[in-house]
Every structure is written in structure tokens, then in C-alpha cells.
């Protein structure tokens, strides 16, 4: 019996030592697990992002390079999510601009993904709104987007958003060869407007080959002015000539984010390609981009 009591005492002491050891390593271990949980949420968010969002927001989230389900490159319809304006600071400049300065970035992104912005082409995703993603999935993809924030991103001087001239005459002269590349691939206009040398290739919007003759669409506009306005403000005037009859809208089915993604030079290049001229004629109409 004495032996048993001795064994009991030793076992009890060893148990306490194991407990003590576990308790000592606990703070470090808890921190590791905390990091692991957050990281795995980001990983899971990545898989949601690349299977649902990258088609519009791009491989790097900059709305720079988008592929459709077949792997064909298409124009990116979404906004950039990987930028200092949205991700740097709390509230970030983008939050202030959207009237969300009393909320957090996480809340803003979460709410946008949940409810979408149907009028601007951002679908709704949250299951509570009838979308396909559960709350935890929206939360994880939000964490993934937030994970683009880095010290480098936030210390880079932000490129100022282009200030679009009000008069097409003030645009620099364009390079049609580069414009073709932009039209076909970078901004994916061809997917909707077809090839300029082949009527009937337009799938969604009016045929691009006709753009250069559309001077009369808005009374008193030149073709350049009309084209410029159509890209900056798609909903300002809805064209009657879509492949299946009059176009729907407003709001226009055409993405309205091109002015956020393009430089002024790119605008000129593309216009040069579509209008087959490198200088743009103006009737002096003011086209004001907000």
C-alpha cells in the first residue's frame, strides 16, 4: 500500500509538471494558433476570390488581367481592390469618399460583397441577400482582400487619379496601334462591341465600326465628343442600337469604371483606333467627369 501511495504522489507531481509546462508554453502557442486561424481564413478567401471574383477584379486584384471561365482573356469589369486608396489608413480615403468614414474597411468590404452594388455591376454575394456565399465565406474573402495591404503599398506615393479634360480638343494625340491592343485585350471592349472591320460581330453593345459615324447621336456633338462621353459616362445617353434591339438602361450595361482604370493617354490611343484619326475634333461641348 505504501508503494502505491508513493507512485500516486509521483504520478500526481508529474501531472502537475506537465500542466505547468503546458501552461508556460501557452502564450506562444496561443499566438501561433491565432495566426494560423487568421491565415487559413485568408487562404480560404483566396480560393473564393479566384473562383468568383478574379473574372472582374483581376488576378492581382487591380482589375488588370481577367479571364473568363474558358480561360480567354477578357476586359475587367470590376474596380481595383488592390490599391492604397481602399486599403491604407482607417478610414481609408475610399471609405471617406463613399461616406463610410465612421465604419471600418472590413465592414465596408464585407457589406459591399454581401449586398453588391447591382446598379454599378457588382453582383451581390451574401446568402442573406440571396447570394451564393455564407457569412463565413464573405468574411474570409474580405480578409483576403484586406491582406493586400502592405507597408510598401501604403508608403508608395499614390498616383493621382486622372483629371479628365472637359474638351476633347485638350486630349493628347493618340496612337491607334496601341489603341487596338487596349480595345481588344486590356479593356476587353471587343467582347461587347465586336471587330471594327466586321459588322455584326458585336455581342452586347452597338457595333464599334459605327462609332466614327455617330456624330449625330447627341445633337451638336462631334463623333469624338460622343465617344469620349460614352466611355466616361456610359449612362449619360443610352444607345438605341444593341444587337437585340434598343439598349437597356439607364443604368447602362456597359461598365462605368473605365475612367478609373485608364490613363488619359490610353483614352486618346483608343479613340484614335476607333475614330481612325489621331487628333480629335471638338464642337466645344463640355463633358464633365465628376
Amino acid at each position: 500500500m505504501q508503494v502505491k501511495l508513493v507512485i500516486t504522489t509521483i504520478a500526481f507531481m508529474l501531472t502537475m509538471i506537465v500542466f505547468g509546462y503546458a501552461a508556460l508554453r501557452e502564450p506562444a502557442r496561443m499566438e501561433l494558433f491565432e495566426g494560423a486561424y487568421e491565415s487559413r481564413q485568408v487562404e480560404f478567401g483566396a480560393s473564393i476570390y479566384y473562383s468568383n471574383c478574379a473574372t472582374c477584379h483581376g488576378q492581382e486584384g487591380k482589375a488588370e488581367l481577367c479571364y473568363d471561365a474558358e480561360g480567354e482573356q477578357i476586359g475587367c469589369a470590376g474596380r481595383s481592390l488592390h490599391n492604397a486608396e481602399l486599403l491604407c489608413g482607417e478610414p481609408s480615403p475610399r471609405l471617406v469618399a463613399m461616406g463610410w468614414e465612421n465604419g471600418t474597411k472590413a465592414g465596408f468590404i464585407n457589406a459591399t460583397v454581401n449586398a453588391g452594388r447591382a446598379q454599378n455591376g457588382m453582383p451581390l454575394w451574401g446568402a442573406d441577400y440571396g447570394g451564393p456565399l455564407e457569412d463565413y465565406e464573405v468574411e474570409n474573402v474580405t480578409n483576403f482582400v484586406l491582406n493586400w495591404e502592405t507597408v510598401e503599398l501604403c508608403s508608395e506615393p499614390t498616383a493621382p487619379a486622372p483629371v479628365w479634360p472637359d474638351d476633347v480638343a485638350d486630349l493628347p494625340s493618340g496612337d491607334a496601334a496601341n489603341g487596338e491592343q487596349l480595345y481588344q485585350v486590356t479593356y476587353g471592349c471587343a467582347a461587347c462591341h465586336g471587330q471594327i472591320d466586321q459588322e455584326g460581330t458585336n455581342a452586347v453593345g452597338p457595333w464599334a465600326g459605327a462609332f466614327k459615324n455617330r456624330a449625330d447621336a447627341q445633337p451638336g456633338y462631334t463623333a469624338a465628343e460622343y465617344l469620349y462621353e460614352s466611355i466616361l459616362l456610359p449612362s449619360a445617353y443610352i444607345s438605341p442600337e444593341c444587337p437585340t434591339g434598343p439598349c437597356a438602361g439607364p443604368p447602362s450595361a456597359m461598365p462605368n469604371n473605365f475612367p478609373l482604370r485608364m490613363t488619359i493617354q490610353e483614352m486618346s490611343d483608343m479613340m484614335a483606333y476607333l475614330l481612325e484619326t489621331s487628333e480629335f475634333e471638338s464642337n466645344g461641348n463640355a463633358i464633365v467627369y465628376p
Partner: protein
Amino acid sequence: MATFFDEVKEMGVKQATIAKVDDVVERVTAGMNINDVRAMLRGDEPRRPNPRLRPHADSFWLHIRPSFYHTEVTHIYPTFRLGWLSTFMFVWETITGIFLMVFYTPSPEVAYQDMWNIMSGVPLGQLMRDMHRIGAEVMVLVVALHMLRTFVTGSYKKPRQFTWFTGMILLVLTLVLSFSGYLLPWDQLAYWAVTVAVSAAESQPGPEFLGRNINLLLRGAPVIGAGGLLRFYLLHVLLLPLLAGIFIFVHYYKVVIHGHSLPPGREAIGEDTAKRVPKAERVYFLPDIMTSEVMWTALTTLGLIGGSAFFFDAVIESHADPLITPLHVVAPWYLSWSQGWLKWIFPNPFTGGEFDSKVVVAFGIIPILALAFTIMPYVEVGRSRRYADRRVGLSVGMFFIAFMLVSNWMGSPEYKVQSSAEQEVAQHILPQEGHSILLEVPYEELAAGTYLPNQVLPGREHLTHALAEFEVALREYSCTNEGDDRFEPCQPYQSDQGTRFSNSAHTEVLPDPYAALVITQVQHNVYELELVFKTDDPENPVDFHFTKYRHEDAAYEVY
């Protein structure tokens, strides 16, 4: 009665205090004063009348314990302490379970997050979780072994048939307890194991409304959701422990009433002398059995805590997703046999077709087996408990154990895998869930690029190892014709697309695609790991991608 104050006046502070303590000890032990307790701990003989018997009459806890045992049943053999261990494990699970309950909410919205919070936000939370989980598995094992031993020593025979009967109830309760706890973490492992098991109810051969309603009752809705989780939770923390508690008492009451059966060789055939213990062969509960139990408590606790702290990590997979069935849904090991049986084919002699294996297993084999076991002591009435007289019975028992072990193996994905070959190859190093050789490669070893199976990367041993495993799996699933001399020997071909194994005759199993691992950086601290399988063969187009992401701090190497 004299108050303490009166006594101090009478005897002085010291004496009065001693008298008071003595009094308290006697009340607490229900009959032993302080000298009796000290004498017991010293190992002295008790005084007459033996005060160590009084607690068995007067105290609540000890009145359910016998006051003495036959010395023959106090050694490791014949009980192996397995019944005691089963009880211990039940108490252990109750204590660790209550700790976990404090931090757990049974709702699909938060259950999964709560599990992670237990592991990352609650001090010693992971240890508690491991202790509870290891406890559940040990308990199943211990109860099964206890059943085995009572079978082997013939302790189920008259007069202990009813003890065995209640034991069967406890076996079922133990299994269901374990399994109902399985769902609670609300991860993929939990969700799908339970979904598959519960769906067996749907296949029942009776009228359709029956299966539908059983299912509805368990799941609380057509699919397991908030209602189902709550039901499993309540079963797990309330109803089943309550039933188990009650039946443990019934079971143990029967054990005490009949006495522990002596080793079979110790009594004449057909006799039961367990209750007639000669004075010389008595071992008293106080102090001997009690110290022994205290010692085993301390040792088992040490073993379980040490095991959980150093060797065992309860897993958690990704969040439950009703839309994604993981490739290999596996039952826990203690139910794997049933999954093995589901893979069998049961031919139907009347139609020439086959029966639905779910029906046969869930509504045929399992109930019949359970019934057979339950009534076994009432049917198998051979008088002798001696091993030599029970050769047939013991052989059947051993055969049954072997059969269960083989069935268990059949339940594992290794036996009759139904998925496609490239999935299996991918599963080998980058499974959808669970341990992955590739994900466990330390983050520092990853870099963007295309890697070939079996590529050797100096200084990056883990990645090299993963690529070696990649080749092993690729070869295994590509070279299915090996040894057949109608085909050329199977050998690797390499191109910049990857590696392929071929004997230049495409097998139907895997059309020998080029395979490679492509790593891309998607964020400053996140890589995409993609296994790519491709063929250029227009007749057999293959273009498979298996993708996972790896964050710098995901710590797969550790957990």
C-alpha cells in the same frame, strides 16, 4: 449540547480544537475518527469492531461499493481493471466536456469559430480539447476490451446475464456518445461523416414516410443545419450522458450484487462462489482497494494528459460546407467497419440484381448482430466457464475480432477507392482536407515556379520530399500494367510541361498525363500551390488542376 465555546472553557483551546477536528473527520468519513484514518494510512490492523466498514453502511459514495473483494479479483487478471477504466473515462469525459461547454455555442454560425477560439484564445483550451477527444477514443477502446474480457472469462454466464445485457446498452450508448460529439466542431470531417451516417436512415426498407421522419427527427430539417446541430449537441451533453450515467449505476449494482466473477479455473464447474469469500481471502476496500484506485487514477490521468500534451492533436478541418463533399469521407476508426460493409455487394438471388448495401448493413447486419450479442448469455448456456471447455465459443470470438479488424481496414479509403486516378495522386500530397505533405513544407522553401515530380532542390528538403512523394503516387497510378509483358516497361518521360509515366499504352486508369506542381505568388505572404495534369492527346483530353493556398503564418508544420 455543549458548544465549542463551552468546551474551550472546559478543556482549553488545544484539546477542544483536537476534539472538534476529530468530530468533523468522523462526520466526513461517516464513521472513522482521526486515529482510525491515521492507522489506516499507516497500514495498521483495524481495531474491533472494524471502523472501516462503517462508511460502507453510512456514506453515500461508499454504500455502492462492496466492503471487501475476493483477493483473486484484485489482481490485474481477470478484470484488467477495464470496467473501472470505463467508469473513469466516463467521469473524465464529463469533466473535460464541461470545460469545453463553457466556450462552445451549438450554432452553425459560430461553432467552428468557437473551436478555433478554444485552441487560440482559451488558456489550456487546446489541451482540454485534446484530452476530451483522446478520452472519447480511449473510452470506446476500453469499453470494447472490457466486453472482450467479460466474454473471454465467461463472466456473462448465469447469474450475470443481465449485467451483460446492461453492458450492451452501455456499449451502444458509448458509441453514440462518441459519434454525436463528432458533429460539434462543424468542420468538413464532422459534417460529412454525420451526413453519411444519418442518411442511412433514409434507406430503411419500410414505408417511405418512416425514413423521412427518422431523418427529420435527427437532422431537424431536410439537411443538417442549425436544428440538427442543436439536436446532436443536446444528445451529446444531456440525454446520452444521463442515460449512460443511469445504466452505469444499474450495471454496477448488478456487479456488486453478484460479486466479481472469480477466474474460471478457481471454482467448480457450474458453481458461482463469488459471494462466498472466506475470511482469509478478503481484501478490504478500505484501505487497499481505495489506494489502488487512487493510484490508477493518478497514473491514468498522467498518461492521458501527457498523451494529449505531447503526442495527440485533435484535428480540425475546414468549415462545414454542404455543397462540397470531400473526396474521402471517412467514419471514425471505431465505426470504420460499418463503412467497410457498405462497400460489399449483396446479390439478390430473386431478381439477379443486388440489394442496396445501405439497407442490408443498417437494417440487416447491424441490428441482427446487436440482437445476437444481447441475447447471447440467455442462449449460450454452457455451464462451464473454463477455457478448455469453451473452445468453440472462444474460437468464434477470435474469428469475430479478426473479421472486425479486416472490416475496419475495408472501411478505409485504401480499399476499393472509387475516385479517379489523378484525384488520388493529388490526394496523396495535396488532399482537400487533413494532413498534406505539400502544405506542410515550410513557407521559406516555397518560391514561384514550375516543379517536376521527383525534382531535387538543394537546401529545400521538405519540398524535395513532397516532390518525391508526388512521383511515387504518379507512378503507382500510371503504371498499372507493370509486370504484364504485353506492354513495354513503364517509364518516365519529361517535358517542360511536367513528367509523365507511360508504357506507351494508355491504360483506362490514367491516360498518362504530364504532371507538375506550379507555385505562384498571389499576395505578399500567400502562395498558390497547383497540381496540373495535362495531355496533348486529342482523344483523351485531360486538363486537371488541384489548387490550395499557403499563407506564411498558417503553421501547418505545427498543426
